[in-house]
């Protein structure tokens, strides 16, 4: 497979093609990457500030900082603090979760198209949640987060089995197709429930689009420990992912326990994606775009890729949210729709790259 032909040699990843060597990452030295990381952190701060100051109700930019530090109960301050701060924080958490999860998935499946949306993980969690809402009337994440984890885990298992079963080899296409089929399955079951029950439809249709709005921070607080542990695990696994990316045989001969790494990564992905879906609904394509952009900036070393993903994910997601608010004033376009409209062309562009698929 073309992707595995790359020569991953430590952190100076180069790609040998017909005698020419081409650097994989834009930032080639460790110091430059560190600088890039700092720059990304600054960009994230800027985007978050924009998220706090832009919205349907015009608030002066000067009100943002005082609203956070010197709250005085005025309308502007309430809007900034209660509404926009909440959605910004949720966006940061969900973006980080999706970005890191995408990197993990692409590493363990060695599939440049792997991400929680395409491979059906989001759909699994979403279906479990819709079922919980329909059966138990649960409407807060506390009520259905375990359903989300279970649904995500089930989807991961089914897609993996399906992808390795249909056809003789698990190419990027086969796995993507398996994911799409499972997503189709689960979406149709979701439609089943929604057709029968207009109440559920009205409750979930905004959430199902993937939205950062409509949630309070208190509801999110219990998700934080899950996310923190899973994100830490995602970063710490990076070294193992580097070894894994050398290929199954080489990794084994270097002493890596590939099966165990894959299993732990899968569990981490389930927690990250499940939490993300429980908080904000199924948001796709962030997990696809973030690792690719991170790789083009930082090279093929997963320690750097995951670090960049941790900052890039929130930047992209909160940025998409701001875009959604700007485009449809005074309303908004849900962030899940924006990421799909921006991310799917990326998928198409990736598909058109010659090396990705062989006929």
């Amino acid at each position, binding site marked *: 497979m073309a992707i595995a032909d790359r020569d991953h040699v430590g952190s100076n990843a180069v790609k040998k093609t017909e005698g020419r060597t081409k650097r994989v990452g834009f930032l080639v030295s460790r110091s430059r990457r560190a600088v890039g990381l700092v720059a990304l952190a600054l960009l994230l701060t800027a985007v978050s500030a924009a998220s706090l100051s832009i919205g349907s109700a015009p608030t002066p930019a000067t009100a943002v900082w005082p609203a956070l530090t010197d709250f005085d109960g005025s309308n502007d301050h309430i809007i900034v603090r209660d509404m926009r701060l909440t959605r910004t924080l949720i966006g940061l958490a969900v973006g980080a979760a999706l970005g890191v999860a995408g990197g993990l998935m692409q590493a363990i499946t060695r599939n440049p*198209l792997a991400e929680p*949306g*395409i491979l059906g993980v989001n759909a699994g969690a979403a279906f479990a949640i819709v079922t919980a809402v329909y059966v138990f009337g649960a409407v807060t994440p506390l009520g259905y987060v375990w359903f989300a984890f279970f649904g995500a885990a089930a989807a991961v298992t*089914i897609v993996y*089995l*399906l992808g390795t*079963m*249909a*056809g*003789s080899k698990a*190419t*990027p*296409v*086969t796995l*993507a*197709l*398996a994911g*799409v*089929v499972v997503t*189709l*399955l689960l979406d*149709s*079951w979701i*439609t*089943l429930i*929604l*057709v029968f029950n*207009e109440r559920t*439809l*009205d409750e979930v*249709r*905004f959430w*199902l*689009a993937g939205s950062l709005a409509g949630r309070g921070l208190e509801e999110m607080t219990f998700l934080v420990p899950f996310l923190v542990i899973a994100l830490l695990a995602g970063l710490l696994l990076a070294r193992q992912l580097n070894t894994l990316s050398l290929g199954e045989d080489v990794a084994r001969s270097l002493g890596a326990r590939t099966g165990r790494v894959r299993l732990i990564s899968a569990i981490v992905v389930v927690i990250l994606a499940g939490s993300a879906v429980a908080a904000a609904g199924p948001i*796709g*394509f962030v997990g696809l775009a973030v690792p690719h952009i991170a790789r083009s900036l930082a090279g093929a070393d997963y320690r750097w890729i995951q670090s960049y993903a941790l900052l890039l994910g929130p930047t992209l997601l909160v940025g998409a949210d701001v875009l959604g608010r700007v485009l449809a004033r005074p309303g908004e*376009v*849900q962030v*899940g*729709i924006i990421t*799909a*409209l921006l*991310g*799917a*062309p990326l*998928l*198409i562009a*990736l*598909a*058109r790259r*010659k090396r*990705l*698929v*062989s*006929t």
Partner: protein
Amino acid sequence: MNEPGSLTGRPSRARTRIVRSFTSRHRIPLRCARLGFSTRYSPWTAFLIVALSFVVLGVAAWSMTLGAYPITVREVIAALWGSPVNPQDDFIVVGLRAPRVVTALLAGAALAMSGAIFQALVRNPLAAPDIIGVNAGAGVVVVFLIVTGMPAALIAPGAFVGALTTAVVVYLLTWRRGVSGARLVLVGIGVNAILSALITLLIIRFPVDRVSLAVWWQAGTLHGSTAADAWLLVVGCALLVPIALRLTSSAHVMTFGDDAARGLGVRVEPARAGLLLVGSGLAATAVAAVGPIGFIALISPHIARMLAGHYTSGVLLLSALIGATIVLLADTAAQHAFAFSVPVGVLTAAVGAPYFLYLMARAGRRARA
């Protein structure tokens, strides 16, 4: 003791040969040089097609007897023949039930054939028009028409145009000095995602009562099918099925790989474009008539291949019959098995999805065995 036809001892060799040729997948070559005709004929597939045709007719007749006003099979046949036993039979059978049954049969057949063509085209048993974005293309147009309150007459042409346009766009985006099946699938997934996002946008922006209607259509329903829908399908199938049959041999050879196909004299790119158009056209016609009924296109070719082997015109027709049966049975159940009428797509999804997983598990077990 071993005379032919004797009751003791082994059966004669002639009889064994006939029985075996019917039950094995053995294909008998039929050639006629003068007519320029060379093909392979499978008695087993032919038998299956004939048997299934009878099953379809039987189920159709039975389905037309059910309803708020029960009618016996004999009265149904009499009404269809033009000499109804009771005067209201004519209206009920010919006016209401027959169009719905015919629409169900043809929609199922069209979807199944479309699925078979796509699976041969992409060389992957998981391919289907739903996945490539054809259904989503139709969906965007129709959901827009429904939630903005446009006249219902526009729905069918809108769906058709949406589906076909999407297929063409996917093909053009895949084109890169030729079209590869794998790339087609990936581009299709991307286009599908964009269109689904647009549908979600529409579902969110409009009031719930209109949106319910759109979601209902999105599930695929035969509710209110008229003779117009049936005729649309008849015309569509009549135009497209002969082309599909002609392209079958090319499709079959292409499943061995592009290079092998070229070596065997198949013009790969034109054949692929033609197959894509025909497959999308069939799916578009079905979606225009009844909405995007899921899983028929995915499952029917699997069942047909399990019964009769790899892709040939016989298998194409067999999957059409299987699709027709499934949709008809599902629609009958959707109408009568519950207290209220349910969209047929809901049933095909509920039942089809687990059945599909079961099929894949079986195929996987067989492949590994």
